């Protein structure tokens, strides 16, 4: 692992600060345009294409990539894999930030964000899958906040409250898994209502299960990917346990991701068979489907497996990038590329640069918050007052 020296780190961070400043400046301006002029002012959305990248990337990918929280905490606290303990806090933190940013992004996307509580308090559209997604995401965001809070409380020195919350760990973890199972799969179930608009290769009655299983892949891969990044930039913040356990986390999570991907590959193929969709594979969309299935599911599964067998951390780390891209590609395919496939090209959607700008802006806010928190709170190390308190 190439550790960055102090001097280098300074220059990297000042470059980061510079870019961050530009992104924030542009983002604030775009925010003004969005709320002063409506969605039409900054997006390419249309009556045929009501959902763009703020849903496909910020919501669908955001929630999937933030799955590391429930995956890691359940592995450690429920399945008893204590050797991954040091991975829990960073995973919970990114999960919490991820969901918070999803919530932020939703405020840009919906027409009247101040009415977001309406489905809960004014009139409940209980037949809507979106109702369930909203309910679960809101609850889970709260759960993640509580799960994250001990780190903040240790930083602030709130010993009593911190110990109280830590007592709830198991309960919160179980809640997290229940809620995640529901809304990760429900994000896929959102598309069950559109058999006539989504290409048959992607439309499947299994789609909720596909979304749930890929969220596990995304969670595992993101933990590996993030730990690679934080080793590069925040190694000085890590304590010995974290550094010692990190390779084990990479190997173990790589192994798990490989097998989950293998299972996912299997159910995808079974899905084609049960829908009798073989003949679609010969079409253009079929080729694209195979690219996704072979290049972004089968390949990462295999590469992870090789990486685990030969104990190549580098290979596993690069594979995690491929796996994460695979999940992103899948969400884009379902929500944008294979959606409205029956329409002529002139009616299809391509994001406006300002939509991308807002998405980048939101990711940047996440990076800044992450940096702010890990450089201050006991995330990558254990607070000296609370050693072996878990």
């Amino acid at each position, binding site marked *: 692992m190439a550790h960055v020296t102090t001097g280098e780190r300074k220059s990297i961070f000042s470059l980061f600060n510079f870019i961050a400043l530009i992104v924030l400046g542009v983002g604030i301006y775009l925010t003004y345009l969005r709320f002063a002029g409506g969605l039409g002012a900054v997006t390419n959305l249309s*009556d045929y294409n009501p959902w763009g990248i703020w849903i496909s990337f910020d919501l669908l990918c955001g929630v999937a990539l933030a799955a590391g929280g429930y995956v890691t905490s359940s592995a450690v606290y429920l399945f008893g894999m204590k050797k991954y303990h040091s991975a829990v806090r960073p995973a919970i933190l990114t999960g919490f930030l991820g969901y918070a940013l999803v919530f932020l992004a939703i405020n840009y996307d919906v027409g009247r964000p101040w009415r977001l509580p309406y489905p809960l308090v004014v009139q*409940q559209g209980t037949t809507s899958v979106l109702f369930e997604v909203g309910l679960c995401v809101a609850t889970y965001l709260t759960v993640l906040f509580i799960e994250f809070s001990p780190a903040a409380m240790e930083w602030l020195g709130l010993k009593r409250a911190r110990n109280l919350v830590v007592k709830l760990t198991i309960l919160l973890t179980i809640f997290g898994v229940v809620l995640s199972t529901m809304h990760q799969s429900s994000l896929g179930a959102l598309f069950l*209502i559109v058999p006539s608009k989504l290409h048959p290769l992607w439309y499947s009655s299994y789609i909720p299960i596909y979304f749930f299983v890929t969220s596990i892949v995304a969670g595992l891969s993101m933990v590996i990917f993030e730990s690679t990044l934080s080793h590069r930039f925040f190694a000085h913040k890590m304590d010995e346990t974290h550094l010692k356990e990190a390779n084990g986390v990479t190997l173990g999570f790589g192994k798990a991701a490989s097998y989950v991907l293998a299972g996912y590959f299997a159910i995808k193929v079974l899905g084609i068979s049960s829908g009798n969709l073989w003949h679609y594979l010969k079409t253009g969309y079929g080729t694209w489907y195979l690219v996704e299935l072979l290049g972004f599911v089968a390949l990462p599964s295999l590469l992870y497996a090789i990486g685990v067998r030969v104990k190549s951390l580098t290979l596993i780390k690069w594979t995690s990038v491929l796996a994460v891209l695979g999940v992103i590609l899948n969400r884009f395919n379902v929500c944008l590329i294979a959606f409205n496939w029956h329409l002529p090209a002139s009616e299809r959607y391509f994001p406006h640069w300002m939509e991308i700008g807002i998405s980048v802006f939101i990711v940047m806010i996440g990076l800044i918050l992450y940096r702010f928190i890990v450089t201050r709170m006991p995330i990558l190390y254990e607070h000296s007052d609370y050693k072996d308190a878990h």
Partner: protein
Amino acid sequence: MSISRRKFLGWVGAAGLSTTIGKSASAATNKHFAGYPDSFAILHDTTLCVGCRSCEAACNKVNDLPPPDRPFTDLSVLETRRRTTTKAFTVVNKYDNPKKSGHPVFYKKQCNHCLEPACASACFVRAFKKTKTGAVVYDPSVCVGCRYCMIACPFEIPTYEYDQALTPRIRKCTMCHPRVIEGQLPGCVEACPMEALSFGKREDMIKIARERFRKYPDRYVNHIYGENEMGGTSWLYVSGAPFKALGMREDLGIKPAPELTAGALSSVPIIVGLWPVLLAGIYAVSKRKEKFAQTDQEEAVASALDKDRSEQSQPEEES
């Protein structure tokens, strides 16, 4: 007390409890739902339609819509394929007749007022409601603007005011619900000079359509579009050309939209009921294993210590 009761009623859906209390008890089973009895429908006979756009003009007027880009008397717009917009709740399109070239067919497009609306099923604030007149009406006072209804509608009808910053609404045909409850005809039906549009009880409209099939078997394709599509709609169409030639989808199936998501929704209680049991079980097992491992380790340490001690003591005895 009364407040919490009202809240509860809100939760379980005003549709269910407050409006329809009383009457038979056996209705609340998972059987076939036939829709509101005596609800209205509109039959569009495309063989009578001449593409005059009078219906579009009338629609614009009764709904107080902004003036159109091109006047309603300009028939050249029929050449391009148009869809519903925030400014036009209905559009008439012209299609080549594959059976008789030189005799184009016209098809008037607007919300089909489904018997089991996908838009209503998808809306998480219940902004859409199927009324007993047959109209599917929208309530902008609760709409959040998530646009899931637009995703869900298989006929691609709802439109959205993308240019509104603070009060964007979904816009679509109301089947002239406000006029109908006052005993008036929908604007388009009233305006049609060719009687291509008929308004009445849905059952009667289906009967009329069948009657026309019987009388003029050569003029029609023997299918009423909307009788069963997506569980049936309150707009019905008959045509001389295959419906596909009119840009209408024939692959929608007859399954009503709420059924498409019913399975996924019903997995929620299963997850909530069983997951905690499963996870708590896994937790218990892993904790037990850990405990055993700990005792094992303690025993191992203890016996090692014993051995150590006895080994140490032996030489002492010898000496």
